[in-house]
């Protein structure tokens, strides 16, 4: 088993157009490194020196990782990770 990572339209240039990729890792940071290994360039769009970029939201099993440890959030086989750009409501 592996972890499914759903990629927003705007980042699919890095995944050969794929909507989702699979990857492995024990934390979100390791997972992103594994995604980067197969899809070079994607990491730089997601994180900067301070952590997740401001307009990027990442959810592990629908929960926003900014409230669960950020890049240190634990992930495991069978989890679903969703990456989305920040948009407004209201």
């Amino acid at each position, binding site marked *: 088993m592996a972890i499914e990572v759903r990629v*927003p*339209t*705007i980042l699919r240039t890095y995944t050969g157009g794929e909507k989702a990729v699979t990857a492995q890792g024990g934390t979100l940071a390791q997972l992103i490194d594994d995604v980067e290994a197969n899809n070079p360039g994607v990491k730089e*769009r997601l994180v900067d020196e301070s952590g997740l*970029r*401001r*307009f*990027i*939201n990442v*959810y592990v099993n*629908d*929960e*926003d990782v*900014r*409230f*669960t440890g950020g890049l240190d959030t634990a992930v495991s086989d069978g989890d679903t990770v*969703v990456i*989305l*750009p*920040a*948009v*407004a*409501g*209201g």
Partner: protein
Amino acid sequence: MSHDTLLDSIGDTPLVGLPRLSPSPDVRLWAKLEDRNPTGSVKDRVALAMVQRAEKEGQLRPGCTLLEPTSGNTGISLAMVAKLRGYRLVCVMPENTSEERRQLLRMWGAEIVSTPAAGGSNEAIRVAKRIATEHPDWVMLYQYGNPANAAVHRDTTAPEILADLPEVTHVVAGLGTTGTLMGLGQFFREHKPEVRIVAAEPRYGELVYGLRNLDEGFVPELYDDSFIDARFSVGPRDAVRRVREFLDAEGIFAGISTGAILHAALGQAARAVEAKQRADIAFIVADGGWKYLSTGAYEGTVDEAEERLEGQLWA
């Protein structure tokens, strides 16, 4: 209960227990019925508060034109307030919002500028900001950055919840402008800091996230994540399933975004049950279902409803 005017009747909404959806006598759910406000949504509080603040600060005079980016409810509330206070209102709204919202806006006298579906509210905000520079005499109250949006929930919605449910342990609300959650967070951090503030954020179809580049992303100026404890992304399938369950079990006909909020509230309830902890979870019913009948969310199978909501701004 009598009020001198319609505007005076805003707020003081009922909090009702949900015995059938609550998992046990120790873990209970409570619904704050914001659909009981004059135009049928929680945004009546916000619209009146933003207008009152602008009037007090001398920004607004009779005959002024208001401009606001909105996906619906704030626009409808502002249209009602504007009509009663003598202002003209121009709403900038994404085209993928329900027909009912447009009809209601027109009935209350608002003019609508439509923006493309792609990009959702982000695009409406961009266009509204551009129109504002072209019409420097118009007043954009700007719900995403107006402190009155959060303050009204800090000063009214939150204390109402605490007064009605002193044992409250969790408060769950929808995340759009972030105003409701910021106000709830500000109040409870000060008056009962152990209360968990939980955000339910609607997850739309891909079209809405179709930005040209990531710099077009948007985080409301009001947002400060220190005022919330958890944030959940809820897709249309869960929202529809829960909104139907809400009516089936408790007889309450709510809007689709409330289904998403209920989904997050039930998630908190399940965690409390698992941890064998007492919980009293209050959540906001943002509006009723009437404005969303044409979306098809309430008919047919959940699969069909999910498909119909694809690409729509359902919250």
